[in-house]
C-alpha cells in the first residue's frame, strides 16, 4: 500500500487478531447479516460498501476490492491499493489462487484473493495484516470473496440485460416507425403519381374542372407529405436530444396568432375563439417550437371534432405558470386513453383514416417537457377534449 497505514490502525488490527477466537462466532454472524443485507442494496457501489464494512467488522482488517480492469471498486478509507497490489491481484486472478506477498510498514503481510465466478475471475479482494493470517480464518475470507464475486457478476448481468432490452425496444420501435412511414409516404405518393400520369397521358382529353380537381388533390397530398416529414424531423431531433432551445421573452398572443397563421385556410374555415388574459406577462420560451406545439394540438382538435363545432384557445397565468388550453367539442377520448394519446404512434382508436402517424402529440410532449413544462389531456363535460399545457414563468419585468 502506497502510504503506510496510520499507527492507530495497525494497533487496532493487532488487537482484533488477538481477539479473533473470541470473535469467531460473531464474525460468522456478521457474514450472515451481510448475506441478508446484500439483496436490498440499490446498486453495486452500495453493495460493495456493505461488504467492506462487514469485512472490517468481522475480520478486523482493512480491505480493497479491485476489478478485473485494474479499477479500485471500493476500499477501506486509507487503504488505497498501489502498483504492487495490482500486480498481486493480476497473478491471483490468473492462477485462481490467493497470493501472499510482503510489504513495508505496519501491515507487513498482504493478501490478494481472486473473485472467482463461473465466468472469468471478476476481480480480487486485497487485505493486509500485521501478522500472518491464521489458517482457520480462511473459510470466512473465502466466503467474503464469494459474496463479493456474486455481487459483482450479478450487477454485470443486470447491466447486460438492461442493455439487451433497450436494444430490443429500439429495434421494435424502429420497425414500427419504418412501417408507419412507408405506409404514410406511399399513400400520398400513390395519388401524386396517379395524378401526374393521368395528366401526362390524357391531358388534352381532360375536362378542365376534372383537371383542376386532380391538381388540387396532388397538391394536398404533397402538402401532407411535407407535414409528415416535418413532424418526423422534429421527432428525431427530440429523440436524439438535438433540439436547441431558445428562451426568448415571447408575447403569448403572438405565439397563438402565428400558430393560426401557419394553419392557414384550415383555421379560417373553423370558428376558433381565442381568450387571452390581458395581464399575461411576456413568457420565456422558444417561439417557433411552441408555435409548433400549438399547431399540432389545434390540428388534432380540428381533425377529431365535427367541422362546424367551435374550438377554443385560452391562455391564462397562475402560480407562476402560463396555462394554454385548447378545447374541442368532438367525441372526446376515453378516460383510460387520456395519457396514451401522448405516446408514440398512439392515435385514439376510433379515429379511422384521418391521416398522420400519431406523432403529433408525442412531439408536443417532448417539446413541452424540454421547456420544463407539463402537458395533459382532459375529458370535457358533456363532450370533447381539452389539451392543456403549462410553462413556467420566470420572474420578468411586467409588460
Amino acid at each position, binding site marked *: 500500500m502506497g502510504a503506510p497505514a496510520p499507527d492507530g490502525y495497525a494497533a487496532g488490527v493487532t488487537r482484533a487478531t488477538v481477539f479473533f477466537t473470541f470473535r469467531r462466532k460473531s464474525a460468522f454472524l456478521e457474514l450472515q447479516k451481510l448475506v441478508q443485507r446484500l439483496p436490498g442494496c440499490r446498486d453495486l457501489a452500495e453493495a460493495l460498501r456493505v461488504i467492506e464494512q462487514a469485512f472490517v467488522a468481522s475480520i478486523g482488517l482493512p480491505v480493497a476490492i479491485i476489478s478485473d480492469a485494474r479499477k479500485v471498486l471500493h476500499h477501506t478509507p486509507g487503504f488505497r491499493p498501489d502498483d504492487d497490489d495490482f500486480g498481486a491481484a493480476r497473478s491471483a486472478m490468473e492462477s485462481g489462487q490467493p497470493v501472499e506477498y510482503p510489504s513495508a510498514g505496519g501491515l507487513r503481510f498482504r493478501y490478494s484473493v481472486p473473485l472467482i465466478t463461473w465466468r472469468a475471475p471478476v476481480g480480487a479482494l486485497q487485505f493486509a495484516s500485521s501478522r500472518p493470517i491464521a489458517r482457520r480464518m480462511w473459510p470466512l475470507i473465502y466466503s467474503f470473496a464469494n459474496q463479493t464475486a456474486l455481487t459483482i457478476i450479478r450487477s454485470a448481468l443486470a447491466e447486460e440485460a438492461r442493455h439487451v432490452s433497450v436494444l430490443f425496444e429500439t429495434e421494435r420501435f424502429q420497425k414500427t416507425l419504418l412501417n408507419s412511414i412507408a405506409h404514410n409516404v406511399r399513400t400520398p405518393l400513390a395519388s401524386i403519381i396517379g395524378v401526374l400520369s393521368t395528366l401526362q397521358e390524357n391531358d388534352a382529353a381532360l375536362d378542365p374542372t376534372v383537371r383542376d380537381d386532380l391538381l388540387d388533390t396532388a397538391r394536398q397530398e*404533397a402538402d401532407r407529405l*411535407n407535414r409528415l416529414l*416535418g413532424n418526423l*424531423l422534429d421527432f428525431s*431531433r427530440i429523440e436524439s436530444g438535438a433540439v*436547441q432551445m*431558445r428562451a*426568448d*421573452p*415571447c*408575447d403569448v*398572443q*403572438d405565439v*397563438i*396568432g*402565428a400558430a*393560426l*397563421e*401557419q394553419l392557414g385556410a384550415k383555421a379560417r374555415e373553423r370558428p376558433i375563439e*381565442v381568450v*387571452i388574459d390581458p395581464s399575461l406577462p*411576456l413568457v420565456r420560451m*422558444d*417561439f*417557433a417550437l411552441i*408555435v409548433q406545439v400549438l399547431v399540432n394540438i389545434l390540428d388534432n382538435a380540428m381533425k377529431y371534432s365535427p367541422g362546424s363545432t367551435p374550438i377554443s384557445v385560452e391562455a391564462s397565468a397562475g402560480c407562476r405558470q402560463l396555462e394554454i388550453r385548447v378545447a374541442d367539442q368532438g367525441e372526446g377520448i376515453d378516460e383510460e386513453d387520456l395519457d396514451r394519446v401522448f405516446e408514440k404512434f398512439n392515435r385514439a382508436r376510433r379515429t379511422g383514416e384521418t391521416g398522420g402517424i400519431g406523432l403529433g402529440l408525442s412531439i408536443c410532449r417532448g417539446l413541452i417537457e424540454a421547456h420544463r413544462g407539463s402537458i395533459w389531456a382532459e375529458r370535457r363535460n358533456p363532450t370533447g377534449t381539452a389539451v392543456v399545457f403549462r410553462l413556467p414563468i420566470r420572474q*420578468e*419585468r411586467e*409588460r
Partner: protein
Amino acid sequence: MTENCARVLVVDDEQAIRRYLRASLSAHGYELYEAATGQEALELAPIARPDLMILDLGLPDLDGVDVTRSLREWTRIPIVILSVRSQESDKVAALDAGADDYITKPFGAGELLARIRVALRHTNPAEAASAFTVGDLRVDLSRRSVRVRDQGVQLTPTEYDLLKLLIRNADRVLTHRQIIREVWGGLSYDDELHLLRVNISNLRRKLEADPTRPRFIVTEPGVGYRMRTA
C-alpha cells in the same frame, strides 16, 4: 406577365429545382442564369450582373451565409434565400448578413414570384412613397399621420418608428436583430427583444381589427416580422 426582363441568377445544386425555377421564371419573362455551387455563383455574379439572386443555403461547397457575405462586399443586388425547415438559424444568419428575404422549400411558384417582385421593388428607391395604404390602414409618412378605419391613431415615438421601418420594407421580412438595430441601437439584444415584442403587441392592439389574427404585421416564427400588403 412577360413585361419583366430582370436577370435572375439561380444558385442551387439540385438540378430538379433549377429546372423547375427555369420553367416557372422564364414563363414570367425573367432571364435566367444558373450556378450549381457557391464558387460558381461568386464567379458568375460579377460577369452576368444579375438583378436578383436566388441562393440555396445548403450548397455542397460554400455556406450560403458566407456566399451572402462575400457578395455584400461589393454588391447590393437583392438575394432571396432558399432554405429547408431545419435551417432556421442559418436562415436568420443569412438575413442578418444582408440577404433580402427567404422562402422555405418546398414552395409554390406564386409565392416565389411574389418574393422576387418585392425584392426587386426595394432596389428601386423611386418607389419609396411617403403615403402608404393597405386595406383600411393609411399612413402618411410626411405628416406622421396614422389612420385605421378612418380613425386617427396615437402612436408612441417608438411605435411610430417601428411602423415606419416595417412600411419602408413592406412585404419583406425583417429579422429581430435588424429591427432592433434600426429602432433601438445600444442595449443588450435580450432587453431589446423584450421591448420589440411589447411594442409589436401594442402596435397590433392599435392597428389590427383582431390582434390575434393580424392582417398587417405578420410574425415569422423564429425570424422576425413582415408588413403584409397583399
